[in-house]
């Protein structure tokens, strides 16, 4: 009485087929990542050394290290963060906690979504026009970082808003019913519970920013500048542009050099991503719900 029918057998074959299909797609997705990392480590590994990280490029960028580019990328990302975090988080708090549901709010949300979809080369041209020329910052760390900040703002806003909205509404209602203002509610209940999500979002965003090339190419990153910038109004080298340069623009570069640069860039990103995961786990354990 419990024997399979022909239909059961048919459905079962489809079931198996689908499972294999989805698994295959997943593996296909992982494969490039694994191959990229393997090739980078295999080809770029020999270029890595302490000197590579701490010395200036020499010999027309065919020998020596990447110190100024490494420091330049860190500086660009830091200044971009200092600009985008306060604005992005504040805007997200407004949109999530204060904004009434009206056409203006919807318009702002639409603008944010569209801003996130703007190609980075367009941001680059905007940065060139606005920060380099109009505000007169010249090609500088400041102009490049502000361009990066504008580019990352929508993602910071969206991820922060999502973290805020993940805090259950009854908490807010409980506060309001006790006569707390919105800000008291935000500062004492909402933010402490959203902070892990907010930080994770920001760090992931940073890791993307570190690799951007187009937005900094016209606005602040230098082709070759074998010393450190002295202020945010100076130009700087950057890892991403340096990689582009040694890979395509400079003759007689040893094969391991561009791979080494790429490995350092990816290493930075991976370290930051792991930090964000670690941070999230630490903060989650301290959550009170």
């Amino acid at each position: 009485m419990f024997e399979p029918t022909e239909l059961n057998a048919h459905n079962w074959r489809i079931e198996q087929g689908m499972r294999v299909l989805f698994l295959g797609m997943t593996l296909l997705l992982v494969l490039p990542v694994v191959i990229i990392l393997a090739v980078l480590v295999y080809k770029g590994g020999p270029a890595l050394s302490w000197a590579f990280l701490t010395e200036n490029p020499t010999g027309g960028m065919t020998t020596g290290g990447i110190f100024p580019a490494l420091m330049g990328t860190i500086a660009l990302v830091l200044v971009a963060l200092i600009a985008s975090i306060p604005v992005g988080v504040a805007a997200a708090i407004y949109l999530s906690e204060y904004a009434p549901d009206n056409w203006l709010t919807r318009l702002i949300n639409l603008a944010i979504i569209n801003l996130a979809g703007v190609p980075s080369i367009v941001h680059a041209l905007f940065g060139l026009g606005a920060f380099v020329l109009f505000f007169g910052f010249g090609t500088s760390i400041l102009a490049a970082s502000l361009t990066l900040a504008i580019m990352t703002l929508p993602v910071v806003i969206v991820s922060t808003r999502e973290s805020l909205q993940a805090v259950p509404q009854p908490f807010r209602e409980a506060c309001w019913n006790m006569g707390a203002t919105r800000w008291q509610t935000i500062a004492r209940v909402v933010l402490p519970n959203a902070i892990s999500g907010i930080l994770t979002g920001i760090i992931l965003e940073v890791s993307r920013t570190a690799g951007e090339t187009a937005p900094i190419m016209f606005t602040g990153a230098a082709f070759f500048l074998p010393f450190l910038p002295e202020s945010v109004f100076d130009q700087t080298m950057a890892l991403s542009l340096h990689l582009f340069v040694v890979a395509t623009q400079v003759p007689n570069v040893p094969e391991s050099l561009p791979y080494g640069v790429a490995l350092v860039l990816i290493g930075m990103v991976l370290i930051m991503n792991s930090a964000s995961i670690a941070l999230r786990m630490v903060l989650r354990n301290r959550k009170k719900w």
Partner: protein
Amino acid sequence: MADESKPQPQAPKHAIQTRGLNLWYGDFQALFDVDFDVRAGRVTGLIGPSGCGKSTLLRSINRIVERLGYVRTTGTIDVLGHDIFGANVELLQVRKQIGMVFQRPNPLPLSIRDNVLFGLRTHRDGDRKSRPSKEVEAQIVEESLRTVLLWDKVKDRLGEPAIRLSLEEQQKLCIARLLPVKPRVLLMDEPCSALDPDGTAAVEELIWSLKGDYTILIVTHNMAQARRATEECAFMLHGKLVEHTETAKMFVSPKNQSTADYIEGRYG
């Protein structure tokens, strides 16, 4: 009607008085001409079928319903003899004087101690500079938790997240956290309906012990509870206040036919 030998202007006979209260959610009218007097220091029950407007009435008494934006109210509500729609009324003060307890216990995602102190830290005696000392805070936490019969159970773990307490304990904590700012009125919207029978009995016992010191208005769907735990009872139907008398009277000889039908379970 017993006249006090010394008339006390500070303590009016009615803690809550509504006159001609109408409330609309957008175009939908949820309250019709409600005249409701809640006597100070008593436990008053509010009963009626689902959707008749009990929660709406409760939420208009601390004006939290206005947060919705599309709500319109006409008529008056006096709390402790003062018009809460008056020109010079600070909403946050209204909500300080009127504590609210919800159906689902909603402790804040903070420690037990910080939950009790939340309101106090929010209002700080109305003075920007005043900040109670650690000792005063500890004393207030103990007093409040003792009042809700929770102190002995939690005194050794005040730093733990409130969410680890059982539902019954959470609900008691939600009552306890209202007390430090000395509210005069406690509104409770089905405070026991998420609790098991033991929890219900414990919270009812607590409510009974608070009467006299606080004016308590409690919504319930549980007729047995209304009978047991209230002194007066009001019956609502379709947004109107139908009948309001002593609990004993209402359950023995209701004046209105629909009240009788509801009490005997002929409504949903």
